[in-house]
């Protein structure tokens, strides 16, 4: 153990007190975190750092000795991100440990070269640790954003029951692979829950259909077929039809209809049902008018 490890180990408590005392208001943020919690975080982090320094003084952070520190920092960064700290505030929490450590080193090391070396090591170490907090902060934000995106995805692909055993799935927007997963899960679960044999996937709201989108659609249709449900694609616009032919996409195994109403009619027919116009009631409904008009001819 070098001078650094040994020196800081001896003075852990005074370093910690010095650190807490010297923390500026912006690092303390009493509005976001209680002083008890702050003390606890400082205590845990400092002990772990000192343990790391005693084992590995290269300040490289790559060895196993630093895993504990990294985990604690990750935890602190993530919880602070949720509490509303800015990434700079959390980084400054780490940076503010420099001065107390420098003070202790200066008091205990008289040789100028040695002092310079140890101060450099401490500087590098704390700089790297502070950078870790920033990365952890960003990762937490990214995770939050992707979770929100996921929720949005799930909300934007509803599955509607048109009739007994017939479902409709209007897709609005682009169909990428993430969306396809949601679509498949939603659709298949609804197929099971409603015992539906037919699912109409309406793509009126899908701006472009290229080979990738076609693949995604085919995946969905295949998965439904494996379960025993049949898919009909509707809402195929003329431009989409042209693109499909130009790209050479093979949809010969898939039933496609231009309009949702046609797809619905087909599903009804295939499930053995038909729509019958009733003879009308005595309050002069439209059908009466039509029937009598026909008679007059």
């Amino acid at each position, binding site marked *: 153990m070098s001078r650094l490890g040994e020196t800081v180990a001896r003075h852990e408590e005074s370093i910690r007190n010095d650190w807490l005392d010297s923390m500026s208001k912006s690092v303390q943020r009493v509005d976001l975190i209680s002083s008890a919690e702050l003390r606890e975080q400082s205590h845990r982090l400092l002990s772990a750092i000192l343990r790391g320094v005693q084992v590995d003084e290269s300040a490289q952070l790559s060895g196993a000795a630093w*895993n504990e520190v*990294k*985990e604690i920092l*990750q935890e602190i960064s*993530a919880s602070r991100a949720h509490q509303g700290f800015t990434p700079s505030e959390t980084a400054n929490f780490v940076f503010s440990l420099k001065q107390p450590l420098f003070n202790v080193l200066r008091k205990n090391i008289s040789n100028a070269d040695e002092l310079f070396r140890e101060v450099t090591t401490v500087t590098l170490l704390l700089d790297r640790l502070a950078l870790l907090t920033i*990365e*952890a902060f960003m*990762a*937490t934000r990214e*995770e939050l954003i992707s979770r929100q995106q996921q929720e949005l995805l799930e909300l934007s692909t509803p599955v509607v029951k048109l009739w007994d055993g017939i479902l409709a799935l209007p897709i609005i927007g682009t169909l990428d692979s993430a969306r396809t*997963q949601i679509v498949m*899960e939603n659709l298949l679960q609804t197929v099971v829950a409603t015992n539906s044999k037919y699912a109409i996937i309406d793509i009126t709201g899908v701006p472009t259909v290229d080979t990738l989108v076609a693949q995604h659609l085919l995946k969905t249709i295949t998965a439904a077929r494996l379960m025993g449900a049949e898919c009909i694609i509707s809402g195929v616009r003329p431009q989409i039809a042209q693109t499909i032919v130009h790209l050479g996409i093979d949809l010969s195994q898939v039933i496609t209809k231009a309009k949702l109403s046609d797809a619905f009619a087909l599903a009804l027919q295939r499930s053995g049902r038909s729509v019958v116009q009733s003879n009308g009631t005595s309050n002069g409904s439209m059908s009466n008018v039509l029937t009598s008009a026909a008679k007059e001819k």
Partner: protein
Amino acid sequence: MSVLRHEELPLRSSSDVVLARQKVREWTTSLRFSLVDQTKMVTAASELARNTLDHGQGGQMTLEVINGLSKTGLKLIFEDNGPGIKDIEQALKDGFTTGAGMGLGLGGSKRLVNEFSIESEVGKGTKVTVIRWK
């Protein structure tokens, strides 16, 4: 990245493949993966374990729970000292035919996981590593 849990399982017989499936199921359940993700991971494990047994002449599977930056994942490593794969690129392309072919199924397994890497040397063996993040 740190390793939170680690276990090794031999793959020497077809009942070991069943055990491997069950083990991966256990771990994905306790990690609370979604049902679809669990199914994908267990199925990938089944494919790769079977490969290790059938083409690698037996080997072992290692399970690890790993921690990335604010995400947890399950890592599976399939290793054998078998004949190795001559053309990895081709093996990855080999999908499944309608069921008559005996493709190595590597391409399919790759699509079931988030990260996939394979090392193989003819005459030495093969090592496939897959990761599924939560």
